[in-house]
C-alpha cells in the first residue's frame, strides 16, 4: 500500500498546517461564537473546506475520504473548537446523499458557501444514528415530539435536520425559533458548545419535509460512518500533538542531573505511547479503506472496531502524556491537559468503547 500523499493532498495538508499554526496557537480557549459571522468560518468556506464532501465539483463521496481525514487530523492537532465535522462532514453527507430533495441540495450549496449551518439532529454519543423524534399528522402540518441529546455545535445552527418516525422514517428541516423547540446549551468537558434539543409539539409544514425516501436510514448511516472516521482522524491528530509535546519535554526537562529522556523507564513509556498511536493510525487507515472501496464487506464492523481501538489508544496516550510531564501536565495552561480532555469527549462522541464493542459483536 502506498501511503504517500498525492500532490493535491500534500498541498491541502500544507495549507491546513499553516492555518492551524496561525490560528490555534497553544490550543487556545474556544471562542463563544463560531458560525458564518466569524472570520474563521468564512476562511473555512473560502478555502473550500466546507465543501469537501459536497461533491459540487463532481468528486465522489469515496474521493472525499482522504481530504476530510487529512483536514480532521490537522484541525485535531490544533485542538480546533469549531464543529466543522458536525456540519461540513456529517450533515453535509446526509444532504448530499438525498439527491432527490431540492431543499437538501439548496442547504448543501449554502453550507458549502459558508452561509447556512444545517445540523443533523441525532444523539451525538451514539455509535449509530438514532431516531428519537416522533412525528404525527396535525391538520395540514406535522407535530414533532422527542429529545435529541448531546448535539455539538447546535447553538450555531440555522436549522436542524430532524429524522423522525412517521409511518416510516422521514427527515424534516426545523428552525430553532419554532414554538415548542427548546435548546439547552451547555459546555463540554473540553470547553466546546453542546446542546440538548427538546421538541414538544413543534409544528412543521409539508414543505419542511426534506425526504421520506426508503433510503433515509442508509443515508444517515453513511453520514455517521464518515463522521466517525473523521472523529478518529481528529483523535489521532490530538494524540500526535500530545506525543510531540511529550517528546520535547523529555528532552528539555532535567532532573537528577540529566535530561529525563535519559531514564530508561521513561524511554519505554514514550515508546509505548508511540506504538499505541501507530496502531490507532493503522485502524484509521483500515476504516478509511472500508469507506473508499465499494466492494469492502463488513464496513460497519470495521468502523466500530476502529472507534474501539482509537478510543483505547486515546486513553493510554492521553494519560501517559500527562504522567510523563509530571506536575506541569496538570496545569490548565499547558497543552497536554487540553489534549486529554479533547480525547475524553471525542472518545464518547459517535460511540464509546462499550457501545461500539457491543455493536461489533452483534453484527
Amino acid at each position: 500500500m502506498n501511503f504517500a500523499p498525492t500532490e493535491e493532498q500534500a498541498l491541502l495538508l500544507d495549507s491546513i498546517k499553516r492555518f492551524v499554526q496561525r490560528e490555534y496557537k497553544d490550543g487556545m480557549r474556544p471562542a463563544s461564537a463560531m458560525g458564518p459571522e466569524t472570520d474563521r468560518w468564512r476562511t473555512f468556506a473560502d478555502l473550500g473546506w466546507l465543501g469537501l464532501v459536497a461533491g459540487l465539483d463532481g468528486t465522489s463521496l469515496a474521493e472525499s475520504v482522504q481530504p476530510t481525514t487529512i483536514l480532521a487530523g490537522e484541525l485535531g492537532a490544533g485542538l480546533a473548537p469549531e464543529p466543522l465535522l458536525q456540519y461540513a462532514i456529517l450533515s453535509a453527507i446526509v444532504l448530499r446523499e438525498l439527491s432527490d430533495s431540492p431543499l437538501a441540495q439548496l442547504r448543501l450549496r449554502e453550507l458549502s458557501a459558508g452561509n447556512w449551518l444545517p445540523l443533523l439532529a441525532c444523539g451525538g454519543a451514539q455509535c449509530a444514528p438514532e431516531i428519537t423524534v416522533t412525528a404525527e399528522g396535525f391538520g395540514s402540518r406535522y407535530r414533532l415530539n422527542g429529545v435529541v441529546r448531546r448535539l455539538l455545535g447546535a447553538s450555531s445552527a440555522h436549522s436542524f435536520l430532524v429524522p423522525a418516525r412517521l409511518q416510516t422514517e422521514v427527515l424534516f428541516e426545523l428552525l430553532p425559533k419554532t414554538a415548542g423547540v427548546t435548546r439547552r446549551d451547555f459546555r463540554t468537558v473540553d470547553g466546546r458548545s453542546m446542546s440538548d434539543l427538546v421538541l414538544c409539539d413543534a409544528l412543521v409544514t409539508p414543505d419542511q419535509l426534506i425526504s421520506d425516501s426508503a433510503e433515509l436510514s442508509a443515508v444517515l448511516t453513511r453520514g455517521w460512518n464518515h463522521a466517525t472516521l473523521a472523529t478518529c482522524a481528529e483523535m489521532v491528530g490530538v494524540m500526535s500533538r500530545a506525543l510531540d509535546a511529550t517528546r520535547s519535554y523529555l528532552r528539555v526537562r532535567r532532573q537528577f542531573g540529566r535530561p529525563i529522556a535519559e531514564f530508561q523507564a521513561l524511554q519505554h513509556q514514550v515508546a509505548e505511547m508511540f506504538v499505541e498511536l501507530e496502531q490507532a493510525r493503522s485502524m484509521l487507515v483500515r476504516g478509511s479503506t472500508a469507506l473508499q472501496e465499494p466492494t469492502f464487506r463488513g464496513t460497519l464492523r470495521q468502523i466500530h472496531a476502529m472507534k474501539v481501538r482509537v478510543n483505547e489508544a486515546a486513553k493510554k496516550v492521553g494519560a501517559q502524556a500527562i504522567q510523563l510531564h509530571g506536575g506541569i501536565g496538570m496545569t490548565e495552561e499547558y497543552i497536554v491537559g487540553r489534549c486529554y480532555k479533547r480525547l475524553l469527549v471525542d472518545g464518547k462522541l459517535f460511540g464509546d468503547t462499550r457501545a461500539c464493542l457491543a455493536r461489533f459483536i452483534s453484527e
Partner: protein
Amino acid sequence: MASMLKLTGAQLMQAISELSVEALEDDGLIFYPKDCLETDEDRPPGSAYAAGVVADALYRRATTIYGGTGQIQRNLIARYLLEAE
C-alpha cells in the same frame, strides 16, 4: 511498604474514577461548573449524581504524580529489592 501503597493506591483511584466516567455514558460529556446544582435555571442536563464525577477523574490524573511519581515509587521498591546484601 509505603511505596507499594502509594503506587497501587494511586492506580486504583484512577481506575475507579475512569470507570465512573465510563458509567456516566453521555452525561460524562457535560461540564458542570461549581455550584451549578444550586439553581435550576442554569443547571446543565444530566443526572444530579453526574456533577463532579469527571472533574474528580481529571484531578486524579495527579495521584500518580504528587507525593512521588509512580516511576519514583518503582525505583524505591527496586532499590530495596536489589541493593547489595
